[in-house]
């Protein structure tokens, strides 16, 4: 009863209130502009602009039909522009539907709906970005949204006191949040996972395309962070981070291919003391593999397996940040399995690149051993003054890309060098493969971890040397500085290198660098302590408090079930009581009457829900005299049913039929209509 009594009837949102709701929506949607497609953003902006303008200059509002149609269209648009049912599609659908809901503000609860939907928008932001900054933004959004919600509920409270109240409420909720965070059973993200991201967050792909432009190498985003155990500090040129192994050469592109055999269970290689343990925190890259320091011997992560080419595959793509432990032996070389077949290591496309093949066989003839041949190939790269460039000229179409690279442009980056090198090796009958991964990393002195960026992506070659696969890196032969600096510097080297290095050495540069390191450390700690707080951490927390959860597990489950059953029962009875309380809410007459009032409202009759039927008729007469006759019939039926209580079955039916057939048309167009009353 009270809920009905509290609803404010005759709702006409003030312009200020309407604008506040709009600001809330904009505030909550803005961060998603990084996530959703451009057409979706444009649609949103158009809807907002129209909403703003409609308030300003009283433009016509979209009717129910238009809104429905628009809703369906937007639904389609969200899916089409975001490549299917991705998370982005859901979010853009949500944003657009909220923007559309802004046009439907007839009751206070419509405003409430918009504001409450905004909370969902806020929460969905966490799917995309959970850094400190965005978390702070989200908290700010929650504060503001709550204030607007308060302001709508209690219009007497101006925005500033509402903000203060919102602050008090949220700050009081904070300890509860902290408690729940610490003790509420964590549901790990992996349980059902999140929908796949639209675009891979990394330039790292499962294939290397020779002619493609290097789009990833200039990105400075973090790829992953590594903390070594026992204070181990690798040297710069030991930092080869193994990703996937590419076997399948199709001329210009290399694909994964090859055998996907899991390694033998016990990779019992190397002495125990040579093993280096470390923890990797991998940013989501939407691919099915993990990275580990060359050469990994063990990786502990659920659903991941070490393959016999020492690539680590995962059963599901990494769609959220993932932490795992690894163990590597630094100077170990992958064993060439005796059972291994030579063919995948020698596979080449049938034709193409004749000059490269010719060069390979010529050099192989002059070399006594495979090792000498490799040396000669290195010499070839060094002597012919190959240059390192992140923006090499692309081979004209129709030419053989490897030939063009080896004999014409002679300029490229790691992909070109490694791929052409491996091609030459294979052409000469030496088994070779490509390894796609990262090279390098930057130590963060504050956090004691290594940061590996997207721009550290690298490709190198592994060639069969007797019983081992030997790592060779042709890029270093050409550009030794690649081993010392990451690609961002390499790009700078193309003319601005002196300026850049000057900057790096200046006090400001060093200060900037340390600032960056501190910030990255904060982010890393945030990820480590907050975002990755897991069930295991909870166990540890309770253990440190002297509570062994393992012991209480059964009891805990029982308690959980009891609470769930209790909750369901309470909910059931509440629902029952609620339904019994308003038995008439759902009855046919009331529904029909509401439909009628809705129709009148669309016809431009302003009627408040505190007005009874007689006043409604007066309102109709005032606003739409042409409808008076037909409306009066319906209103008389309603009065007879509701207030004279003379309802008969056929009267009810006639009432419903009359309402169904009541088509008032739009306001302003009633000249064309001929009502019964006229």
């Amino acid at each position: 009863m009270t809920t009905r009594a509290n609803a404010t009837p005759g709702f006409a949102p003030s312009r200020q209130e309407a604008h506040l709701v709009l600001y809330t929506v904009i505030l909550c949607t803005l961060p998603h502009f990084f996530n959703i497609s451009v057409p979706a953003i444009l649609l949103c902006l158009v809807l907002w602009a129209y909403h703003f303008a409609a308030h300003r200059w009283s433009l016509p509002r979209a009717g129910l039909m238009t809104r429905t149609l628009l809703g369906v269209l937007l639904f389609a648009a969200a899916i089409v522009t975001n490549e299917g049912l991705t998370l982005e599609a859901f979010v853009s659908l949500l944003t657009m539907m909220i923007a559309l809901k802004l046009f439907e503000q007839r009751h206070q609860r419509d405003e409430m709906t918009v504001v409450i939907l905004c909370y969902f928008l806020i929460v969905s932001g966490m799917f995309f970005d959970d850094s400190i900054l965005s978390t702070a933004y989200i908290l700010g959004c929650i504060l503001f949204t709550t204030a607007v919600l308060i302001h709508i509920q209690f219009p007497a409270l101006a925005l500033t006191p509402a903000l203060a109240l919102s602050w008090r409420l949220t700050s009081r909720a904070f300890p509860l949040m902290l408690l729940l965070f610490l003790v509420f059973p964590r549901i790990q993200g992996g349980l059902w996972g999140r929908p796949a991201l639209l675009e891979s967050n990394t330039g790292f792909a499962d294939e290397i395309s020779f002619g493609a432009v290097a789009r990833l190498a200039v990105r400075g985003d973090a790829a992953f962070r590594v903390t070594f155990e026992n204070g181990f500090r690798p040297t710069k040129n030991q930092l080869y981070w193994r990703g996937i192994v590419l076997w399948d050469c199709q001329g210009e592109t290399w694909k994964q291919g090859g055998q996907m055999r899991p390694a033998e269970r016990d990779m019992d290689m190397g002495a125990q003391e040579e093993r280096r343990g470390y923890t990797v925190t991998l940013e989501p890259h939407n691919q099915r593999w993990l990275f580990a320091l060359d050469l990994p011997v063990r990786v502990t992560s659920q659903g991941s397996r070490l393959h016999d080419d020492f690539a680590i595959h995962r059963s599901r793509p990494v769609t959220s940040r993932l932490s795992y432990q690894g163990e590597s032996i630094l100077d170990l070389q992958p064993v060439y399995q005796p059972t291994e077949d030579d063919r995948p290591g020698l596979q080449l496309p049938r034709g193409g690149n004749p000059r490269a093949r010719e060069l390979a066989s010529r050099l192989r003839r002059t070399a006594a051993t495979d090792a000498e041949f490799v040396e000669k190939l290195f010499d070839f790269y060094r002597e012919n003054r190959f240059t390192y460039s992140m923006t090499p000229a692309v081979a004209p179409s129709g030419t053989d890309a490897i030939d063009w690279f080896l004999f014409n442009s002679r300029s490229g980056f790691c992909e070109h060098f490694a791929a052409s090198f491996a091609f030459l090796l294979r052409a000469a009958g030496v088994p070779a493969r490509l390894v796609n991964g990262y090279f390098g990393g930057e130590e963060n002195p504050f956090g004691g971890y290594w940061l590996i960026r997207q721009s550290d992506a690298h490709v190198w070659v592994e060639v069969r040397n007797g019983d081992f696969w030997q790592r060779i890196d042709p890029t270093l032969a050409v550009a030794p500085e690649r081993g010392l600096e990451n690609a961002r510097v390499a790009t700078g080297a193309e003319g601005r290198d002196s300026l850049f290095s000057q900057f790096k050495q200046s006090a400001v540069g060093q200060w900037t660098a340390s600032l960056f390191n501190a910030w990255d450390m904060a982010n890393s700690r945030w990820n480590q302590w907050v975002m990755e707080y897991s069930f295991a951490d909870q166990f540890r927390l309770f253990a440190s408090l002297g509570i062994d959860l393992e012991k209480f597990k059964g009891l805990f489950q029982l308690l959980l079930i009891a609470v769930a059953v209790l909750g369901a029962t309470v909910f059931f009875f509440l629902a029952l009581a609620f339904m019994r309380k308003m038995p008439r809410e759902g009855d046919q007459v009331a529904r029909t009457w509401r439909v009628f009032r809705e129709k009148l409202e669309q016809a431009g009759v302003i009627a408040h829900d505190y007005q009874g039927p007689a006043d409604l008729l007066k309102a109709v007469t005032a606003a739409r005299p042409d409808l008076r006759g037909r409306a009066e019939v319906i209103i008389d039926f309603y009065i007879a049913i509701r207030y004279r209580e003379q309802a008969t079955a056929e009267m009810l039916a006639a009432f419903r039929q009359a309402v169904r057939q009541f088509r008032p048309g739009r306001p302003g167009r009633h000249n064309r209509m001929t009502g019964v009353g006229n």
Partner: protein
Amino acid sequence: MDTRQANQCPSPPGQSAAPTDVPAKALQLFAALEQRLGVHVLGKEEQIRLSLCCLLARGHLLIEDIPGIGKTTLAKALAKVLGLKFRRVQCTNDMLPGDILGVSVFDQRSGLFSFHPGAIFTQILLVDEINRATAKTQSALLEAMEERQVSIEGESRPLPAPFFVVATQNPLEQAGTYPLPESQLDRFLMKISLGYPNHEAERQLLVAGGTVVRDDEQGLVDAEVVFQLQEQVSQVRLSQALVDYLQDILNFSRNSGRFAIGLSPRAGLSLARASQSHALLHGRNFVLPEDVRRVLPYIAIHRLKTADSLAALTIAELEVAFQAVPVPA
């Protein structure tokens, strides 16, 4: 198309004649009554209607206004036009209950006590400046109003059948007065104020040199008819939907937090009766939410106070406040 189909539907009963089920004679009577009353009280159609509504609902009326605004004229005119007996009591602070109710006097000739009825034994009683009477007198009067009988010396004496009290009080002069407590205000069905006449009415008044209710004026009806009309009021239908609406209003007054104290059950009963009466005045034998809305402010005004400052509310404020209660669909 629409026209044809609308005609196919069975017509709702009584659609042709809007005022339903009440003989047209009664409606004419009301029109005539209001017209005659309007002759005496110029330009106060709304107040006249509310007074009639109050009378037919067997309620009592409190008029709060400054002197000389036509309160007595209204009460007198009501009595004359309805053919009812009229008495008037001017309250003072030395007045005793017996002055209103009556006293038993020893008759030396018969050797018996004989009862001399007070002013209250009438049909329309005008109690002028009720807040000047002492609490004792007030409560005696108000008890009689509620019980419709007077108990003197152990003997109950019923009051005449239509019994209607019009009490007035002056809102400005507070010195030497005994304001009616809330519990006694509740006994009055409605509180109205007349206010200054409008420009046109005042001009008419000045030109005519005032209106006089002549003693020999004949009433349009008599007590019997009034009694029957009162009976008819209680027959006016209060549908389930309307009772829901009434309850929503009562709940709102109690739970919304806007008012210090909500409407009492007696106020609820008063609201229902006044709504019925209002419906009858409009020729209907069923109550519509509009009836409730029209009479509600006059029923609530002397019963509700704001929650924060305990201040009295105006009619307009009450109208706006109760707009928060939607009519159940």
